[in-house]
């Protein structure tokens, strides 16, 4: 065993001491920096905006690298339209420790489970909220998808009906790769409605069925011409009026004019969310 002189031993011990001290000081410095950062974060404004603190408490951001929070409302037709895209995310995300899916759901708490089941959506966490309480925090559109990092800071946000380009952007942000055709071939959120013509309605009535034709056009168009006996509920009033003015047991036949656009899908989704299952579309362009 080589001999070590006392001075060398002292020098070596001194070096070890200096290195230990340096490690300790670095550790303390890093810790102080982290504390300062955390303090700053808690002082960030709570808002629906990139760079702000997510304004809803009770969500654990540390469970995954990032969380996609989707804000939905039970009577919102666009929420239902986006449902197939949310399902695509759910089915293609790599693992839950990377991306958690959370929904903030507004509307009747008693119907929340049925609503999500109806849209075949499953999330890691569902939190029932009053959307009115979120509006002061800058929530301007529903649905809204908010990407939040593991420190609770909003990193990105998308509102309303998503274009294919926006859907691609969401998938990129979540690092989800799907077939190039996947977005083009997303299924409709509601199955196509069967159609029925006036003769068919008459036949059902003769068989003892109660049939209500609901004209979804605005009052001006309805006044100009409408099918005899049709009830006018403009589509923007349907969510409120249907549950009070239509009977769930009746056959509901929808009419939205010659250029219905997405009116039938939206109306069917709204009615279906309220428990109306017997729905048809009137097969005629001129009532």
């Amino acid at each position, binding site marked *: 065993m080589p001999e070590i002189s006392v001075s060398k031993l002292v020098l070596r011990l001194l070096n070890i001491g200096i290195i230990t001290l340096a490690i300790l000081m670095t550790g303390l410095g890093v810790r102080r920096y982290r504390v300062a950062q955390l303090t700053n974060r808690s002082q960030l404004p709570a808002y629906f905006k990139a760079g702000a603190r997510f304004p809803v408490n009770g969500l654990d951001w540390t469970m995954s690298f990032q969380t996609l929070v989707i804000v939905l409302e039970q009577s919102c037709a666009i929420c239902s339209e986006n449902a197939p895209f949310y399902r695509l995310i759910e089915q293609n995300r790599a693992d839950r420790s990377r991306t958690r899916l959370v929904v903030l759901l507004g509307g009747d708490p008693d119907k929340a489970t049925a609503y999500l089941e109806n849209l075949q959506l499953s999330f890691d966490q569902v939190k029932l909220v009053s959307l009115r309480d979120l509006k002061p925090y800058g929530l301007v559109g529903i649905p809204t998808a908010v990407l939040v990092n593991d420190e609770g800071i909003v990193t990105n946000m998308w509102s309303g009906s998503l274009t294919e380009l926006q859907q691609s952007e969401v998938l990129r942000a979540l690092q989800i790769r799907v077939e190039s055709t996947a977005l083009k071939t997303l299924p409709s959120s509601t199955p196509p409605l069967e159609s029925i013509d006036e003769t068919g309605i008459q036949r059902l009535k003769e068989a003892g069925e109660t049939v209500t034709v609901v004209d979804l056009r605005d009052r001006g168009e309805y006044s100009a011409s409408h099918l005899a006996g049709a009830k006018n509920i403009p589509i*923007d*009033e349907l969510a*409120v*009026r249907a*549950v*009070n003015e239509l009977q769930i047991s009746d056959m509901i036949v929808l009419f939205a004019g010659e250029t219905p656009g997405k009116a039938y899908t939206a109306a069917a989704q709204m009615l279906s969310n309220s428990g109306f299952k017997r729905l048809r579309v009137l097969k005629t362009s001129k009532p």
Partner: protein
Amino acid sequence: MVRLEYDGNGKVVSVDVLEAPDSEIGGAIADAVRNWTFKPSSIRGEPVNIRGKLTFYCLIDSKGIGRVQNPKQFR
């Protein structure tokens, strides 16, 4: 059914009766709504006007006394 608009202070600036069982009921509801004050709305701190529709359900009992109920109560 009325369509109304309120300003950034929550003051009702216009009321249109879109549908009513008769003109008296429609007029009474419009008069009542004109006296309402809404909680002011703002987007990113800027006061904004809000337009929307309100549905009222009018119930008239056997004594001829009318009551107005909101949709949730009506149901």
